[in-house]
Every structure is written in C-alpha cells, then in structure tokens.
C-alpha cells in the first residue's frame, strides 16, 4: 500500500496546502464594506477544474491497482509473463497520438483551425489504432494460453490494460464531441474559444493517460 500512501500523501498535502494558503491570515468574522467585494473563485473554466479533479480520481484508482499489483507480486505463486513485442509498437502509437493532440492544441492557440482539424483526425486514428493494438496483444496472449486464470501476472495484465483502454474510450467520446463541434463550422469567436478549450482538455487528458500507460507498462516489463 506504500504506493497509494505516497500518492495520497502528495495529493492530500496539495489539498491541505492550498486550503491553508487561502484560509490563514484571514479574519472570517470581519465584514466587508460595499466597495471591496471580490470574486475569490478559482478563475478557471469549470470544465478545466473538473478535468483536474477527475484525473486525481483516476490516478487514485490506478495507484490502488498498482499497490494491489505489488502486494500480489510478492506472494509465492507469482510467475513472470511473456510481454508481446506488440506492446512496444502500441506504446509508440500512443505517444504519437499524444503528440498529435499537442499539435492540435498549439494550432488552436494560434487560431489555425484547418491544422486543428488535421491533427485531431490523426490523434483519433492513432488512438483507435492503439486500442486495436492492445486487443491484438490480448489475442496473442490468449492464443499462447496466457489468459487471466493462467497466472496472477496475466490477470493483472488483462485487468489493467482493459481499464486503461476503457478510460481511453471515455476520452474518445470527448474527442468525438470536440471534433463534431469543429466540423460543424467555426463562426463566432465564442465558438472558437470553446473549441480551443475542448482541444486543450483532450490534449491534457491524453498526456495523462499516456503517463499512466508508461507507468503500467514499465511495471509489466518488470514481472
């Protein structure tokens, strides 16, 4: 559980630090007169904060899985499993998908919507390719007789890759909605700002899932 504990300590530390910074040296009992009212909200779009909180939840989920993985790994019946080489290709594809989304984000900041469209299509295609590649890796393992019950390492492999792919599917829903908005046409400035925000959120989420995947993959290599 030490992985989870370190993760939680960092996260709770951040929450506590942020809260203390906003609550220390404040005199809550003092009333404010009319001229001084401030808006003390976090000055970010709600969706951005929500994505941050959601990524914290997902990170918590995976850190718990990693804890379970390392505890289970220390038990007697753990056997290493063969990692299909295909996983290296898939990792490369996911990195490229992340790069493509970063490209889209940069282009969106410059307002060059044609490039955003191209980059978003490439990112989507690469992501689908990654998920298909993961499925092929599953098929390879099953064909060689390494399904879930064969070995706890396999069970974790299927479970973790499956969950990671599910989170990517969720991302693809957001990707689809952003693309639909993008292709519906860009007229007003408000619409452009919305698209820019959505592309940014997609890019951040993809980078996040890439980091998660890299951590998971390095764990699986070390069975």
């Amino acid at each position, binding site marked *: 559980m030490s992985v989870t504990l370190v993760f939680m300590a960092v996260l709770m530390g951040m929450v506590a630090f942020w809260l203390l910074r906003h609550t220390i040296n404040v005199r*809550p009992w003092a*009333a404010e007169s009319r001229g001084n009212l401030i808006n003390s909200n*976090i000055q970010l779009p709600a969706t951005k904060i929500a994505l941050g909180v959601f990524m914290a*939840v997902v990170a*918590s989920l995976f850190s718990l899985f990693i804890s379970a993985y390392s*505890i289970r790994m220390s038990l007697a019946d753990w056997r290493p499993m063969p990692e299909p080489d295909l996983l290296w290709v898939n990792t490369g594809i996911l990195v490229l998908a992340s790069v493509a989304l970063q490209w889209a984000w940069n282009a969106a900041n410059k307002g060059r919507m044609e490039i955003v469209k191209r980059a978003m299509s490439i990112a989507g295609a690469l992501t689908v390719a990654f998920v298909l590649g993961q499925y092929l890796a599953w098929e390879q393992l099953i064909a060689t007789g390494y399904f879930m019950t064969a070995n706890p390492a396999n*069970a974790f492999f299927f479970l973790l890759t499956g969950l990671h792919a599910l989170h990517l599917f969720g991302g693809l829903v957001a990707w689809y909605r952003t693309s639909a908005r993008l292709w519906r046409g860009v007229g007003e400035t408000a619409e452009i700002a919305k698209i820019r925000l959505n592309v940014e959120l997609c890019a951040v989420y993809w980078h996040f899932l890439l980091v998660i995947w890299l951590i998971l993959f390095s764990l699986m290599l070390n069975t």
Partner: protein
Amino acid sequence: MVQAAHDATSFVAPLEVEEEELYHAKTFIGKYIWSQDAKVIAIQYAVTAIAIGLVALVLSVIMRLQLGFPDTFDFITPSNYLQFVTMHGMIMVIYLLTALFLGGFGNYLIPLMCGARDMVFPYVNMVSYWVYLAAVLLLVASFFVPGGPTGAGWTLYPPQAISPGTPGADAGIIMMLVSLALFIVGFTMGGLNYVVTVLQARTRGMTLMRLPLTIWGIFMATVLALLAFPALFVSAIMMTLDRLLGTSFFMPAMVSMGEQTAYDGGSPILFQHLFWFFGHPEVYIVALPAFGIVSDLLATHARKCIFGYRMMVWAIVAIGALSFVVWAHHMYVSGMNPYFGFFFATTTLIIAVPTAIKVYNWVLTLWRGNIRLTVPMLFAIGFIFTFINGGLTGLFLGNVTVDLPLSDTYFVVAHFHMVMAVSPILVVFGAIYHWYPKITGRMLNDTLGKAHFWITFIGTYTIYYPMHYLGFEGLPRRYYAYGDTAFMSDSAQALNSFITVAACIVAVAQILFIWNLISSLRNGKPSGPNPWEATTLEWQTPDTPPKHGNFGENLPLVYRWAYDYSVPGAVEDFIPQNVPPEDVPTARTDDPTAAPAEGQPA
C-alpha cells in the same frame, strides 16, 4: 442572465467567470423527473435514500427479534439472518448515509449556501442520481434472485464471500459488487459537481472563510469520497473477476465442500487492505457533513457565532487528511506486524485531537448562548452526547491490546453504532427539521418532532449501552443464536431481549417522523422565508421554496461570514450574509460611542 449587482450605485468588480446558462425545462417530466435542478435532484436522492433506509431499519428489527427471542420466529433462518446483517450494514452506510448527506444535503445546500444558481454541470448531476437509483434497484433485486442477497457481512471478506455455502454466493454477491461499482460511478459524477461548484461557482464576496461549516464538511467529505471510493471499486472489480472468471487475486488455495478449488495463491489480506482503505475514510465521509451541519444548527439555534471558526475548518481538513492513514486499525486481528499495529494505533489516537477540538468548540458555542430548544437544536445537542460516548469507546478500540479481546464482540457493534450510525442519523433528523421549512415552505409539527426526538434519543441509549456489557462478556457479533455457552451469564439473554424491545419501540417511533414529513406537506404551519432567523444565503432567497435559479434576477452579494448572531449594537440578533455593514440597523445611531456593528472577535 442579468449581471449580479446589489444595486446600481454600488461598485462591484465585474464577474470574471462567465455566468452559467441554466437549462430551463418546460415539461412536467423535465422539471420533476428528468430534472437538472439540483434542488429536485436533492429531493430525489433524499427520498430514495430514506426509502431504502427504511428497508434496512426493518431488517435490523428482524435481526433483533431473532437475537432477543431465539427459537420463536420460524421465518428467520441462519442464512436469512446473515443476509439481513449484511444488507442492513451495507444499505445504512453507503446507500442511506453517504447518499443522503452528499447527494441529498450536498445537492440542496451547496448551490444555495454558496450563492450559485445551480451545480456547474446540471446534466451530469442528473445522470448521477439515475445511476444511484439503478444501484439501489439492483441491490433490492438481489433479494429476489435464487439464493437471495449476499450474507458475507458488510465487509464482504473473501474467501468466504464468494465460496459455496455462504448465503448468496451465487448471484447475490455479484449483484452486490456490481451495485457498489454503479454507486461509485454515480457518486463520482455527483462528487465532481460538488467540488467544482464549491471551488468555482461561489457568488461574489463568498470567500472560502465565509463559507458555512456545512459546506466545508460536505466539501471535504466529497474530496475524501472521490479519493477513497476507488479502493472499493478496485476490490469490487477484482472480487467479481475472482468469482466469475476464476482468477486468484484474493482467493487462496483451499478445500471447499470437500473439494480442492481451482483458486491458488491469492491474498484475502490484500482485500482487507483495499476494503479498509476505503472503509475508514468512509466513516469520515459520513461524519464530516454531520460535523458541518451540526455546527450550523448549534450556532443558529444558540444565537451565537460558532466558537473558533478557523479551528473548525482546519480540524475538518486535518481529519480528512489523517483519515487515510488509520485504515489498518480495523485489521488488528489479521496477524499484522506489531510495529505496523503500533503505527496505526498512534495515528488513530492522533485523529482524536482535531475531533476533540471540534467537540470542545461545539460545547463552547453553547456556553452562554441564547439557546432556543427547537427540535433541530435538540437533535444537535443529542448528537454531541452520542458522539462523545461513541468516540470515547473508539479510544479503547484504537489500542491494539484492548482491541484484540474486544474485536468482533458486541462492544464493537455498540461503538460504531453510537459514533457513526446514531450520531450522523441524529444530525440527519436535525437537518431535516431545520431545512424542511425551506424545502416545502411549511414547518414540521413541533410536538411530533419532540416526541420523535426523545424516543429516538433515549431509545438508542437503551439499545446500545447494554451492548457494551455484552461485549465485555465476549458475546460475538454476527451470531444467529448463542445456545448454552460457558462464558455467557444467564442475564445476557435477558439483556438481549430488553435491547430488542427497545429497538422495536425506536423503530416504530420513526413512523411519527415519516407521518410528520407527509402530513406537514399539506397541514404544516406556513413557515415564511426565514423561520429560524438564520444568516446563511439559503434563507434569503426571494421565494420559499426557492425557484429554479435560486435567487431571482440578481445573485446575492456576500459581505460577512455566516455567524453574525447577537452582534453587539445591532438591533436584531442576526445579520444575514448578504447585508452590507452600511445597512445594518444599529440600536442608537445617534450615539457616537455605540459599538460597531461588525467585527467581534471569535
């Protein structure tokens, strides 16, 4: 939507964050069934949670009937008994308390108390409720499948939970695990809303340190829940796979029903770690909103500012952070390393410090207050008593050496029922009596309310105090019948019967409450907008009950904290949060030595 401004002449900074566009439903179904209004969703959550809670109440009465009068009721078999124990615990902790505090009170109070028009993602909020309802229905459905619901105890420990011979090991346990996973998915949608709304959608002037403690409690509990529920999710998924696909995450090699099972090498202790990594923060997920709400009830009905507001806020944050490092005190008997046990005993005792600070501050808030013994106040004071009693036995059980002999006895049952069942439920009752006038525009009946309080309060003591003695004697929990055992004195059975009678009386008395809720909808005395003369924003809405959008044309502006009660010099004994200092009527405006209307130290 119109820009928020108190009046045209006063200067206020412009809104930096775009005001949200509300979805305006036009049909009846859009307004009340598939509603995106947080207030309607709150009521949907609350009604569902209370309904399923009543089922769990009936289950507890059946359990008590068996324990008090064994060999009397033919319809209670040993399997049934275990199933009722399990379902009672699971429903009460998760489907009632968590859902009611966060989904019910959270949805109703967060937008109103923060001065927002609604949650920031109303659509996601709506989906959250329907997923929760699906989880509840799946849970209820497990009563009707072959084999019935799971009887593994609410902790669902493997290998027992999914081994043949345990009630509900076929379908019941799977439905339980899937229902929990659904609940967590639904909660995460709601939880994102609660957190982001508090962080981002407060009205102007509502700084973090002007938030009512209710919001602080719900906010921190939501943070805990968002981070802790994944642990339950992880264990639910892995156990489902163990059960359905035959993996061995948790299942060790074992002989079951005379046959070697296919499982090999899994770790039941791993499940316990994951479960309690969720399970202990869960205690505070239920307790922190109760702490927050009770603080506001005490301040409002004692007409005094809460004692040590900042300390109360930091205590909530500290309890939240510490609650992640105490989980293994539920596992002292699992054969852990003594140093490990020492560590967890220490952290467990440390968490008593911020908790004690809160208790002292509640008592000091009452001290020399102008106490109005209204029904919500009675429940709030009842909470302080019950929480102290339950908390003190927690100090015993937190120590490894004391816990070992008391583990799995009725002492533990008495402890956690006092501290995390009865205490939060008393706050739930208090909060419903307090906010019902805002939700419906009518007061609840006072006489019925007082009767309900005294029967419930005294009743719970007659139920749970004797259980401590039974625990000392070593009476194990979760047993269907005790028969003749050497260590049990003859009077133990008499005590058990006594507890059962008390439990039945308390359970029946809840009809008073339900009847009060229903009949007051029509017959209750009209309450007006602010019957308790409270300061927080929800009592300052232009309409009671508040309409869609909460605050009419202009959002309120907040000039002060939520605890300006009995301010020296002011004419009235409360100043609402949206009244600027310039507008506070003072007693003698012509006297230059009169005390200022603001800024009394806390």
